[in-house]
């Protein structure tokens, strides 16, 4: 896509305006009546929602609510029992290059003998295509992505020698380098240090400014109102979805967590405070 290394900055700007104009008319993700079953037992049931373009969306729900399953089903990584998924108005197959995925950190073997830069470069393999080697411009793009997440100097480190936060940043860099318009992230904030959490949310906000949409599984209810402008509350079914200030209510959270919630008061309090300040 990009003609040369020098033109990279310019090219990024162009793709930014391009995706902005595209996003204004297109719904990044629509899910209709999605049911996923595992051994005939439904994991998610009749899930349907749409998310608005350029939003930062949190998926919130208790353990076993089917959050990861939902992301995997959207990405066609697991078979679905019924339902339909549209990405920018078309099927995933047709728009796969516009979707980036950040899986859970535990989903891969960090002892694998590759460097941080190798992992990031994998985000470009689709662009490169079957059997062709990566060109210098690809490695440069991977290096820039590592620098953007703040660990450019760790490029040659074997990935098991990275801290948890650094591994998560590597995964994020791998997603950034794909230049996707819709990102699906499975718990990017799980078990990372405070500075990594801050760095990740900064990058998510930058992407939002550039018109990109992110769908993020999130566990810390405290930070939901601060981080996300749209939420999907999930517990096998969609309990509620919509703008955070309308949907992230005590009542909805109780429905989602079935009354088991202890952090609830604090979280709603945090939200009220934010609303008042707005």
């Amino acid at each position, binding site marked *: 896509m990009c003609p040369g290394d020098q033109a990279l900055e310019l090219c990024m700007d162009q793709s930014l305006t391009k995706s902005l104009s595209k996003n204004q008319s297109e719904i990044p993700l629509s899910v209709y009546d999605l049911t996923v079953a595992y051994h005939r037992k439904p994991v998610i049931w009749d899930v349907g929602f749409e998310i608005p373009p350029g939003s930062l969306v949190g998926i919130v729900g208790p353990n076993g609510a089917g959050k990861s399953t939902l992301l995997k089903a959207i990405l066609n990584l697991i078979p679905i029992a019924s339902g339909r998924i549209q990405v920018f108005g078309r099927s995933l197959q047709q728009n796969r290059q516009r979707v980036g995925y950040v899986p859970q950190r535990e989903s891969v073997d960090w002892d694998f*003998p590759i460097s941080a830069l190798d992992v990031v470069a994998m*985000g470009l393999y689709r662009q490169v295509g079957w059997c062709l080697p990566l060109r210098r411009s690809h490695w440069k793009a991977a290096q820039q992505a590592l620098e953007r997440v703040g660990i450019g100097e760790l490029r040659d480190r074997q990935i098991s020698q990275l801290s948890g936060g650094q591994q998560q940043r590597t995964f994020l860099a791998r997603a950034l380098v794909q230049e996707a318009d819709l990102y699906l992230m499975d718990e990017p904030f799980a078990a990372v240090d405070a500075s990594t959490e801050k760095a990740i949310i900064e990058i998510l906000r930058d992407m939002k400014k550039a018109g990109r949409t992110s769908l993020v599984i999130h566990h810390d209810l405290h930070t939901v109102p601060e981080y996300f402008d749209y939420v999907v509350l999930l517990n096998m079914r969609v309990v509620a979805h919509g703008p955070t200030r309308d949907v992230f209510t005590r009542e909805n959270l109780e429905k989602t967590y079935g009354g088991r919630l202890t952090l609830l008061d604090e979280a709603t309090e945090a939200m009220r405070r934010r609303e008042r300040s707005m």
Partner: protein
Amino acid sequence: MNGSPQWIWELDGWIVLAGILCAVAAAIPGNFLVLRRMSMLGDAISHAILPGLAAAFLISGSRSSLTMFAGAVIVGVLTALFTEWIRGFGEVDEGASMGVVFTTLFAVGLVMIVQAADYVDLDPSCVLYGAIERTPLDTVAIAGLNIPRVVVMLATVAMINLLFVIVFYKELKICSFDASLATASGFHSQLMHYLLMVLVAVTAVASFESVGNILVVAMFVVPPSAARLLTDRLDRMILLSILIASAAAVLGHLSAITVPTWFGYGSASTSGMIALTSGVLFLTAALFAPQQGVIIRLLRQQRLSLRILSEDLIALLYRMEERPTSRRPDLVTLRSVLLSGDWITALLMRRHRQRGLVQSNNGVFRLTEAGRQLGTELVRSHRLWEQYLVSEAGVPADRIHDQAERLEHFTGRDLRDRLNQETATPHTDPHGSPIPSE
């Protein structure tokens, strides 16, 4: 088996070449078996090719090697397929599902071999450890040269494996590391998996005659495992595994024809010795690997604990001089406080004396100016950390000592200054001891 102990190029040259080709052919796909933690699938496949050979013969009635080859490869790939199915449907782990599949197939093979026994000369010992020594006996003429058939076959397979890994290097890498990203990027990770399994089956079948179906497992798994210990880059690992495999083949045959003669026996089984040599090479790598080797890790640990103990000795003397007690600062006291060994304490104190950190007078130690400087740094680090852990990290005061005790050995001047700033330049630690300034 009772070959001459002397090296004869026309014979031993071909045997070694067959050994190298076989070991290299297996090591190449073996890297990915090891990295994907499916080494045992190589084992399962190499066992399951037995019924493939028998079935191909019983069905086609032909003993042509191509038919047998195809039959064995098909069953080998089916093993991988069945393993995956049973794991998916039966909700059992991969190990158990492999155990079910390959023992069943192996048993079917045994039954069929009994049926076919009158026609096929499948010798059980040959199944187990092959007959690489017979390599030079069966030749084909290529370009006017008489080349052993086995060498031609193994060279072809080694070439195919090498080309496959070169051409699909990127795809194998992404599919092995992160199958879901591979699928999401449009690389069919299942397809790559089964292509790899085809290669494993082909390699197992091609090696069957030379090294048998058990020893080939060593060739799949051992050189790549040894290579992994020596490097943490995939490309170097594959290259090293090829080198180790070749070395194992050469050394294996050499030791097969020489070592037993030292004890007055004839030569030993070459394939057995190749596998044994791989094991020895692996052990060597495990012991002496520069980064992850057992010995270097022990040494590193040893050095670290010695450094910590020698610093603890200085810090203890500093504390004893800071607040004089009734106890004499001699070796006995130091040992009993730090629970350190007799001679190691004496040795470290002697080194401190030689370095001018400590003076000794009738067995009683006293810090020199340089020693006090080091003691100040250590104790200052310790107490600043205690203060930091309590005031900034919220750790209860009764749990800070041990952490500070560790951290003090890894804290330089720069970090101390920052600790000092963060804790607002305290004069005492949480226990009330003064924090010395440097």
